[in-house]
Each structure stands twice: as C-alpha cells, then as structure tokens.
C-alpha cells in the first residue's frame, strides 16, 4: 500500500518520536492521518500499519473499537458533526441537529445519496463559548443558526 510522499514523511517523523522499541505509540496518530488521506480504514490499511509498527491486527482492532474518530465505513466527502452537549444544547444545539437531519434527509451516521455529506451527532467538541458549534472535517463553525447551517450545507455541496 502506498501513501503520498507528504504522509510517508510524516509517518517517518512520527515513528521516530517514540522511544526505541515503543513505536506502537505512533499507532493511533498513524491510523487517523492515513484515514484522512484514504477516506476510511480498510483491511489493507490495517495490514499495512500492522506491518510498519510490528503490531498484530487485533491490537489495531482494539483501538478501532474504542476511538470515535476512527471508522471503517465510508463517509461523505465532508463529515458534518453537530454538538448537542450541554453548552450547545442551551443555545439551540438540539434544534440545529433536527434541522440538519431534515435538511439533509438523513440521520445520525448516515450519508447523503450523492455521497457529499455525512452527518454525526457528537459529544462536546470544545467550542462551548461559541455555541452551538458544528465541526466539518477539521473546520469549526461557531455560533451557528439554522440559516447559517443552510448556507454551510450549500457551500459544502458546491465544493464538490
């Protein structure tokens, strides 16, 4: 399995960041960065990372079942995460979530038919003072309203 030269350089740096013989420390960052490039964690990717870090497949399955950002399924071109935890809820996060589901015609952890946007209801994303907040891929969108969310969805569809 091959990755972009930038990612290969990052992997080489990452592995060097942990003590000798402890390169497994790079496992979770490697999986996340690889997933960013390939879109999802495939069997092939698991085998590749297992080989590079000298870990077993089951050690990788263990962390895949634990960390919410790592996923085996394919997601939309853009992944929209809406926070409904307390600070966001107090400022309309739940209504925003319902609105997004209606607007996109999908539910939690589903993807639009055209594959452009997937949706997830998430726990606190650390944007509490700028609530309600939405995270699209790694971009934060603060102080959201239903109108602003409509515009955001349109711009994401346009970006394809």
């Amino acid at each position: 399995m091959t990755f972009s030269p930038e990612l290969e350089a990052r992997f080489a740096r990452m592995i060097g960041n942990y003590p000798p013989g402890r390169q497994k420390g790079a496992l979770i960052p490697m999986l996340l960065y690889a997933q960013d490039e390939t879109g999802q964690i495939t069997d092939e990717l698991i085998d590749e990372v297992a080989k590079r870090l000298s870990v077993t497949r089951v050690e990788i399955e263990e962390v895949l079942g634990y960390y919410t950002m790592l996923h085996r399924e394919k997601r939309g071109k853009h992944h929209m995460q809406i926070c409904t935890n307390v600070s966001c809820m107090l400022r309309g996060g739940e209504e925003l979530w319902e609105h997004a589901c209606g607007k996109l015609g999908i539910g939690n952890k589903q993807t639009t038919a055209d594959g452009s946007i997937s949706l997830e209801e998430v726990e606190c994303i650390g944007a509490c003072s700028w609530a309600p907040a939405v995270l699209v891929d790694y971009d934060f969108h603060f102080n959201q309203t239903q109108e602003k969310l409509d515009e955001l969805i349109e711009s994401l569809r346009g970006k394809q």
Partner: protein
Amino acid sequence: MLLNQPHPLETRVLTRRFEYPQAEPIWVDEFIAKQGYEGFRKALGMAPDEIIEEVKKSALRGRGGAGFPTGLKWSFVDRKSAKPTYVVVNGDEGEPGTCKDRVLLEHDPHRLIEGCLICARAIGAARGWVYIRGEYRKYIDILGKAIEEAYGRGYLGENILGSGMTFHLSTHTGAGSYECGEESALLESLEGKRGNPRLKPPFPASVGAFQCPTTVNNVETFCAVPDIILNGGEWYHALGTPKNGGTRLVCLSGHINRPGVYEVALGFNMKRLIEEIGGGVWKGRKLKAVIPGGSSSPVLTADEIDIPADYDSLAKAGSMLGSGATMVCDETTDMVKLLARVMKFYAHESCGWCIPCREGTTWLAKILKRVDEGAGMARDIDMVDQLASSMFGRTFCALGDAAAMPAMSIVRKFRHEFEAKTGSVNAIVPAPGTQPLVVL
C-alpha cells in the same frame, strides 16, 4: 479567531501577549520580543530543586480539573531512576463546557513549549509529548509549526542554547475519547492502546509513559510556569488567594450575554464573573443555576454563587472549580432534560473497564431519559439518587464520580422539577406514542 474583547476586570498573565483580535498566532519573533523564553533562560541558571521550590511557592494548582499542587506533583517524579523521565502535556480538553486550552494553543503556542522546557529542566526530562484531542487538528498544526520554529532557534533539540541540555518535544493527536483526559488513560493512549485507566498506585511520577517516571499536566498549567519563574513564585501567588495562586482561564457558556474565555485571578467572585464580565443572563431572564467547573461538577443554584471562585471556596460550597467551565442556565432551563443530556454523555464516554461506571452510567441515562420523556415513575427520582450515590467513589477512575456528582446534586436541588415530570404513583406511564418501558 477565538478571542473576545478584553474586560477590565480580567487579570492577564496567560493572555498578556494577546492583542485583540490577534488574528495570527504569536510566532517565535513576536514571542521573543515579548519576553518569550526569558523564564526558561532564567531556569537554566537554577538548580532543578530551586525550580520546583519556586513552583511550590506560587501555589499553582492543576488547571485540568483536579487542582493538585503542581510543584508537589513535579517533586514526586523519580529523578534518581535509571530510566529516562518524561514530560506529557494533557491537551485532551474533553470536559463539557471547557474550551480554554485551545485559546492558548491557537494564539501563544510558544508559551506552552517554554513551560515544557522549564518542567523538563526541573525533572531532568529529555523528551516530551503534547497530547491534543483529535478534533483540534488546526491547533495541533499551529503547535507543530511553533515546535519547528523552536528547533530552528535552538530552544529544542540537543545542547539547547549551549547549556548541554537536551529536550525533544512533539505533538500527539488523540482520536476521539473523553476518557483519555484522565492522565493514566492518556498514557495508555500515548502508547497506542485503548484509553483504559491504570490502577494507581503506582502513579505516573514513578511509572508513567512507557513505564518511565512522568509528569502529566494540563496545557494551561504548563502555560502558567514561564511567568512564575520569570517573576517569582511569590508574585504569582499574590495574584490569587492563600491556597490558590495566580490566575486562570474561565469559559463562560450557556445562557449568558457575553460567552467567552476570560482570565481572572483565583478567588474572583463568581456572581461578578457572570454579571459583570459575562454581561449577565441573556434575554433579561433570571438565573436558575450555574455548573461551575464542567459538566461533572455539582450544580449551584442562583443563590449559591456569591462566592470566590477558587478551589477551596467551591469545595466548601459542595462543588468544584474543575476545569473552569462555567455553564449558565436561565430560569427557563429544564433541569431534568439537562441532567438526561449530561448522563447520555457519560454513558457514551464510559470506557467500560469497570462495572459500576459502565452499568451505572447506562442505567442512569435510561432512567433519566424516561423521566424526561414523561414516562418515569415517582420512585425513579430516588433511584437516580441512590444509583449515583452508590456509584460515587466506587469506580476505577474519576469518570464514575464525574457522572454521579451532577446527578446527585441536580436531583436534590431541583427535585420539584423531577416530581412535575413523573406520576405520583409508581405505575408505568408510557409517553404518548411510545411503547411501555421495562421496569428495573
């Protein structure tokens, strides 16, 4: 851009380099021009014990939530060990309501690097990692760039500033887990494993990252250190109260006119914080409740907040200062719904390692959901209290306590709201359009 307009009642130490609106991070040249790395230069001329003594004098306490004295924590690190010692920064920032570390990471990343260097000098570490939650990729990249700059200027690497000291620092991304904010779970995660907490003792000071002596501190804690060394522990201590030195960031959120992250002296009055700095409750409404230290801290009612916001005063009031996340609830807030939402979070984030937490949070979430939806029974109210009370103090790590504390306090202080949502008899009352629920 996360900065809010500075408020005259703020005391700016951590945020003193910020110039509103501070569109760009403070990169190395600007940092050095504004006294950057001067605290570290001074520390290079001090013995490790002198550094620790200065931090002890400052009465700096951990800003992640537990409030443990930082100098004491550093003094526990086993420096005589034949193994290397490590510095680990906790930037997991998962406690609901907390959004302060990101402000420091985004605007003044070199401050954190300088804090790590001083700690490394004190505990004899040559390696450190900054563990940051995965959602904060933008800030991981900013810190990554600052680390590169620091290597380029000789502040990181080998023979730092000709002193003979070696220190390497790198970022490490998380991948979505609240539990990884618990320091031993964070260390497991750093080693490439599931974020399950470790049995303590041994504490990380003797057996930490990769089985070596380690200190783990919050981002904000490390960021406070450069000014402590530069101006002295006593100077920092005097900014706060006798047992609570310095300043800290507070995150105002919820039903408030000016939500934002502000820096105040320890012991600043909580009522004034909400009314004067935060501009009071929004929409001209009255205050109902305040969650003073993240969603795991016990709730305070409107008439309980005229107190100094420091670790000891909050503890005396039956709550905790926690991570400084102050969530404001106006008079229209449905406290049953709020607690049900809080519990949904803890049930989702429980790592499942120990049974009281895994089962306790799951059942509390189920019971609270049915009470919130009008399908609960009168006896559910006491059941929530009893379940939370029996979970408290009996779980492997603090996540169980974090779930139990809001449950016990909200049920006790707002019992009438729960009673209004449940029938007076212990009968199963299905909510309109739902199936009857199974009783415990």
